[in-house]
């Protein structure tokens, strides 16, 4: 499928910005209460750069989205989501299948593990992105199954104990709260699914 980059950027930006308060509330429970406001600033900067971004070929455009997030977000989520988009820009094929998106996402997961010094099960965004990448790669994915897996995986971070990030300072007390990065990853995945399926 060809990727409709402008609608993807608009929808992902709009959904993340609309969820800013929810993400910040999740982050105030187990972190430093800035995830929503930081991502909002980042995606507002992406929107401000949009004409420049869309003038580039898709791969370069995604790298520019990543670099904009790196420069503007201001928390650890800047380099983390920046790395995600920059790796996607490098790895996504021209007209990707689900499996092709899965392979590119899996490469991003590998890059994110290195960037965040984190593994699956540490109660981070990786706990959504990892399972979704593996599911997409399997070749059995549908839009519905991807959305359901992203949502279920974000919920599955609730009983986890945080090992990385500010939440890890809370130790056992991080249990019982959804990881804000897992939730923001779920929101972005759902937005991409909705656009590609023609629902947004």
């Amino acid at each position, binding site marked *: 499928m060809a990727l409709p980059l402008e609608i993807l950027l608009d929808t992902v930006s709009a959904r993340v910005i609309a969820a800013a308060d929810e993400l910040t509330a999740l982050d105030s429970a187990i972190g430093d209460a800035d995830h929503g*406001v930081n991502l909002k600033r980042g995606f507002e900067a992406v929107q401000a750069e949009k004409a420049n971004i869309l003038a580039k070929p898709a791969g370069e455009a995604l790298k520019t989205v990543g670099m904009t997030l790196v*420069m*503007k977000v*201001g*928390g650890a989520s*800047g*380099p983390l989501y920046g790395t995600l988009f920059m790796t996607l820009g490098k790895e996504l094929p021209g007209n990707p299948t689900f499996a092709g998106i899965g392979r590119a996402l899996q490469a991003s997961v590998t890059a994110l593990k290195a960037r965040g010094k984190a593994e699956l099960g540490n109660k981070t965004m990786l706990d959504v992105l990892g399972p979704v990448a593996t599911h997409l790669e399997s070749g059995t994915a549908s839009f519905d199954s991807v959305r359901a897996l992203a949502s279920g995986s974000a919920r599955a971070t609730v009983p986890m104990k945080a090992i990385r990030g*500010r939440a890890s300072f809370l130790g056992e007390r991080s249990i019982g709260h959804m990881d804000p990065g897992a939730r923001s990853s779920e929101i972005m995945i759902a937005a991409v699914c909705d656009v590609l399926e023609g629902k947004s």
Partner: protein
Amino acid sequence: MTVGIVIVSHSPDVAKGAADMVRQMVGNGVPLGFCGGDPGGGLGTSVEKILAAIDDAWSEDGIAILVDLGGAETNSEMAVEMLPEERRRKIVICNAPVVEGAVMAATEAWGGGSLADVKRTAEELSPQ
């Protein structure tokens, strides 16, 4: 030449305060850069400000960066990776408390320590 010190905190006040403590110890004998705060002016860190602080403190003998919490480290790593290779290999990020680490690192640098000496001295403050 002397190894330069860069202080990266989430708080501009902490960064400035730590830099003041370094200056009290070593005067202007050590190249020093510091920054704090996110691009929106709140608590956090900014790759752009970190790059500017590295520039302020630049020394061909190397730069030791002291960071406070997670995002400061991640954003510092990102900033370093954006630099050309000949600069990148002269920069280390120390696993040390930001205030005490900065003062100890600067003292070692002032005494003529190499980049490896400066990093080791700062990291003696961290539990192994």
